[in-house]
C-alpha cells in the first residue's frame, strides 16, 4: 500500500474538528497571540521616533521577535499534545490498527498544527502592521515597512512553525504524559528563536547571508525532520510503553 494523501486528509480533518472543541487548545490559540501582540504594540508606541537608526531597528526587531513567538509556541503546544494526548485518551491504539502509515499520521498531525499556527501568526502580524500604519509615528511606520522586517517575518513564520511542530511531535512520541510533553516541546522549539533574537538585538550582526543561511537551515530541517520523527515513532513502544 502506497502513501495516501486521503489518509493524511482524514487525520487533518479530525484534528481540526477536535481542536475546535478542545477548550485547552482554543484557549492556548487565543491567549498566546493576544499576549504576544500586546508587547510588540507597546514597543511600537513607546519607541522614540527621534532615536538613531540602530536603536530604532533594535526596537522594531524586538517587536518582531515577540511576534515570532506565536508560530513557535502555538504549534509546539499542539504538536507536543498530538501523540501522547491520543495515547492518554486511549485513541492511539485504534488508529494504529488501521492501514495508516506512521508517515501519513505524522504529516496529518503536522499539517493540523501548522495551518492554525501560521494562520494565527499571519493574522496577528497583519493586525500589527495595520496598527503601525494607522497609529504609529510615520518615522517608525516607515522603518517597519521599508526594511526587511516584513519579509523576514513572512519567511520565518512558517519555517519556525515547522521546526516547532517536528520537535513537538518528536517529544510527544517519547513523552510519558501530556504536560511533560508540552513543557519539553515548547522549550525545545525555542533555540532558533534565540538566534533570531540575537540578530534582531544586533548582538549578532544581521546580514542577508546570515538570514538566508538560517532560513535554508530551517527549511532543510522542516523538509527532512519528518523522516527522523517517523523513525522515532515506534508502534510497540507507544502501545505498550516498552521498546520493541
Amino acid at each position, binding site marked *: 500500500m502506497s502513501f495516501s494523501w*486521503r489518509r493524511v486528509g482524514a487525520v487533518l*480533518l479530525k484534528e481540526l*474538528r477536535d481542536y475546535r472543541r*478542545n477548550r485547552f487548545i482554543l484557549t492556548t490559540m487565543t491567549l498566546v497571540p493576544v499576549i504576544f501582540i500586546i508587547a510588540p504594540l507597546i514597543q511600537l508606541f513607546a519607541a522614540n521616533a527621534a532615536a538613531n537608526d540602530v536603536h530604532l531597528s533594535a526596537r522594531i526587531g524586538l517587536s518582531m521577535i515577540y511576534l515570532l513567538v506565536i508560530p513557535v509556541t502555538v504549534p509546539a503546544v499542539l504538536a507536543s499534545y498530538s501523540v501522547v494526548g491520543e495515547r492518554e485518551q*486511549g485513541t492511539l491504539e*485504534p488508529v494504529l*490498527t488501521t*492501514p495508516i502509515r506512521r508517515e501519513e499520521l505524522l504529516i496529518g498531525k503536522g499539517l493540523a498544527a501548522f495551518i492554525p499556527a501560521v494562520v494565527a501568526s499571519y493574522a496577528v502580524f497583519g493586525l500589527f502592521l495595520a496598527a503601525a500604519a494607522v497609529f504609529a509615528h510615520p518615522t517608525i511606520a516607515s522603518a517597519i515597512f521599508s526594511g526587511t522586517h516584513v519579509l523576514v517575518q513572512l519567511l520565518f513564520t512558517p519555517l519556525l512553525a515547522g521546526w516547532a511542530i517536528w520537535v513537538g511531535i518528536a517529544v510527544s512520541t517519547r513523552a510519558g504524559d501530556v504536560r511533560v510533553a508540552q513543557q519539553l516541546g515548547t522549550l525545545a522549539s525555542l533555540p532558533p528563536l534565540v538566534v533570531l533574537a540575537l540578530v534582531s538585538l544586533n548582538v549578532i550582526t544581521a546580514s542577508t547571508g546570515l538570514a538566508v543561511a538560517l532560513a535554508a537551515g530551517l527549511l532543510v530541517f522542516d523538509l527532512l525532520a519528518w523522516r527522523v520523527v517517523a523513525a522515532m515513532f515506534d508502534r510497540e513502544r507507544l502501545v505498550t510503553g*516498552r521498546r*520493541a
Partner: protein
Amino acid sequence: MSAARVTGVTTGQGASTGGSALVVEHLTKRFGDRVALDDVSFDVGYGEVFGFLGPNGAGKTTTVRTLGTLLSPTSGSAVVAGLPLGEKNGPTIRSRISLMSESPGLYLRLTVRENLEFFAGLYELDDTAGRIARALRAVNLADRAHDACGSLSKGLRQRVALARALLTDPAVLFLDEPTSGLDPVATIEVYGLITALRERGVTTFLTTHRLEEAERLCDRVAILNTTLRLIGRPDELRRQLFKRSVEVRLREPLADAATVFGGVGAVEAWEQTPAGYTLTVADPDEAVPALTRALVAADADVLSVTESRHSLEDIYLELIDEDVEATSR
C-alpha cells in the same frame, strides 16, 4: 470431580472449510525478561467464531496485538487474512482486519458520525455515508449519529466502537472483551451481532473472561496461560478433560449403595455427595437406563438420574488450578 489429565495441546483445525483466516505457528513474545506468550500455535478457519480465554496476564491481548501488527513477535510466525505477519505487510493486513479493544478509544469531543468518518477515511472506504448508516443500524445507534461520543454511556460507546469495527467488512474481526462494562441488555445485543456476523461468514477472534459468553458464541475455544493449554470445541474439551458422569438424586440414601451400583456394568466408580451420588460412567446413554432399572429394583425413590454437564467454566478452572499448582510446586 475427576478430571482426565491434560497431556498436551491439540492444534485443532479450523471449523469451516475454505482455508484458514489465521495460522499461528510457535508464536512467542517477550518483553525484556518477561514472557508474555510462549510457543503458541493454532489456526482459525474462515467464518469461525474462535474464543480466546485466559486469566489476567495470560497473553490474550498480546496475542491480539501481535496478530493485529501492533507488536512484533519475538519468534514464530503467523498468517493473518492470507498474508504473512511482517513489517512490509502491516498496512495491507490492517486493511483486511478490524480490531476492537476493551477500551472503546473514541474521540469524545467528536460526534459518533465524525468518529466513523475519520476511520472510514483511514481505510479509504468508498460510500462512506452508506457504510456508516449500515454500521450504526447494526448496533442500533442510527438515531445517535450526531451525538458527541462524550455524552454517551459506556455501553453506547462500546457499541460505537463495534460499529467502527464493522465499517470495513473485515475478513477477520478481533474483539477484545467486547461486552466489558455492558449491561445485560446491551450484552445480549452484542451476542446477537456476533451471531449475525458468523452467519455472514465473518471470522471472529473473541477474547473474553466471560466463559458463558465463549460457550454461547464460539465454535472453538482456546485456553491460554502464557502457553496454549487447550484448544477445541467446548464439548470436545469436556470429554478431553473430564470423565463422563451421572448424577443420581434419591429421596433417601440407599441402604447398600455398593451392591446396587456394583451390579450395573456401565458404572466405573461412584461417590456419595450431599445431593445424592455421582457415578463415573463410560457411556451415559447406556448407563442411565440400567441404573434406573437397578434403583427401581432396590426400591429407591428416584428423583432424577441425569448426565453431569461440565461447563466451560469447570474446564477453565480445572486448567488454571493445574497451572497454579504447578507454579507453587
